[in-house]
């Protein structure tokens, strides 16, 4: 536990020094602030536009952070040979990877939280109103990003940052459109296609179930089961990803 915490905090500190983090975060803050220019042309829907733009930008920049930093997290350690300082110590590979995931999640969470505070600040200034229910969406976004962080770490155990970045992005897109896979499997009457589509639907991460932006925006009720589903599903999925990552990483030569 101590070693996981140590690796996690070290990853977090290392991430903070990353120039990508700074540039992505600054772009995020600037874009959220720039949503002010949309107020006069939003034709009476300023509340909606500010909230929607804010939420979408927080999600986009969280994904970008995960892809830019998460996919390089192991690669850099191996390239710079700093990994030898860890593997020579009595640390298990699973602990090392859990620590890395913890550090990355903490980093993405911190930036997400700061971006969220920016949205709150701007809604208070522009709309004289703070929409507290947005925190519910933040809860679901956290668990989505946890899965994506897991995907990035798994991919960085065996590919280059560019490849893992591209695959992570693809998985994020599929996870957000997986409901269409289900629809497609019902539409196409070819049994083999139905099996493949169903397999992909259940096997790949699914973010469509926890996408509650419409419910948040229109103050609609959210299924209470989702509050339990999101953490349990993402934790189970991350366990699955980290197990594969551990198995793959163990095969590398430095162990």
């Amino acid at each position: 536990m101590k070693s996981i915490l140590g690796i996690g905090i070290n990853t977090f500190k290392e991430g903070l020094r990353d120039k990508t983090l700074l540039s992505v975060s600054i772009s995020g803050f600037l874009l959220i602030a720039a949503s002010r220019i949309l107020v006069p042309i939003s034709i009476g829907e300023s509340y909606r536009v500010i909230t929607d733009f804010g939420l979408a930008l927080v999600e986009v920049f969280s994904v970008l952070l995960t892809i830019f930093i998460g996919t390089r997290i192991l690669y850099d350690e191996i390239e710079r040979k700093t990994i030898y300082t860890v593997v020579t110590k009595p640390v298990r590979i699973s602990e090392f990877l859990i620590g890395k995931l913890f550090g990355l999640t903490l980093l993405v969470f911190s930036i997400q939280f700061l971006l969220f505070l920016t949205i709150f600040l701007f809604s208070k200034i522009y709309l004289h109103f703070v929409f507290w229910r947005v925190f519910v969406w933040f809860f679901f976004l956290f668990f989505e990003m946890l899965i994506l962080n897991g995907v990035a770490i798994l991919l960085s155990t065996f590919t280059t940052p560019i490849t893992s970045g591209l695959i992570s992005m693809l998985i994020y897109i599929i996870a957000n459109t997986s409901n269409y896979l289900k629809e497609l499997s019902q539409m196409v009457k070819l049994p083999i296609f139905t099996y493949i589509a169903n397999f992909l639907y259940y096997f790949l991460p699914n973010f469509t179930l926890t996408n509650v932006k419409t419910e948040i925006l229109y103050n609609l009720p959210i299924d209470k089961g989702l509050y339990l589903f999101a953490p349990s599903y993402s934790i189970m999925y991350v366990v699955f990803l980290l197990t594969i990552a551990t198995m793959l990483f163990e095969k590398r030569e430095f162990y």
Partner: protein
Amino acid sequence: MKKLGGFVIIIISLFVSVLFVKSFEDRKKSFTGEKLLFFPSGKFIQGVACGYNNFLADLLWIRGGVYYGGQKLKHGSLEYLYHMFNVITDLDPKFVNAYTTGGMFLFDDLHSLEMSMKLLDKGIYNNPTNWYVPFMKGFILYLAEKYDMAYRWFMVASLFETKRGMAFKFANWCLQKEKGPEMTLKFWEDLYNSTGNKWMREKAVKGISRVILYAAVKYRREKGEWPENIVVLVKSGYLPYVPSLGGKYFILKEGEVLW
């Protein structure tokens, strides 16, 4: 000498590229009207939205406002208006303002009751417990002088209206056609006070002006002269009261309504 040659090449290439941009800029202008021809269907955009449906609906809402404003300014055609509102509401089926604003624009600017009803019906289907969409449908039907149908939709709206009971009052007024001007004035006033939408506010001003003008024309037809002012119309029973919006009163001057 070499330096000077490089400098000349830079100047010439820059000048030529500016000329290229300038000539293509003019060519592009002639295509602006057809920009929306390639606007994909809502179902397609939904598929590629990746969970950002509301965000895209907002972008299109803003784009729709720019399209409407731009076409109005140059008195252009608004033929893609329905398509645009249809796509916005495909992306966000709960966007009530898109149905009501779209319904009003389609009826008032495109003079298409059919398209307006189609969009509002979609709104009612996607928001079955919302009172404002059937209310707007009732009002547009009233403007189209289909009083019987308007009454029915006002009654539907009154079933879901929780606080003000306005829809029920409108349904009653609709039944009593002689109270038409009062109902219309009240609707426009209410619309003006309840929306921050600039275009809808302009519609409210235009709507009230029309009611006043209609009463003035009626007065002239019956009395043989233009009424001196709005108070004369009120006193002689052609208007229920002197209408105002945002604390500003309407003025009738030589057959012209000012606000």
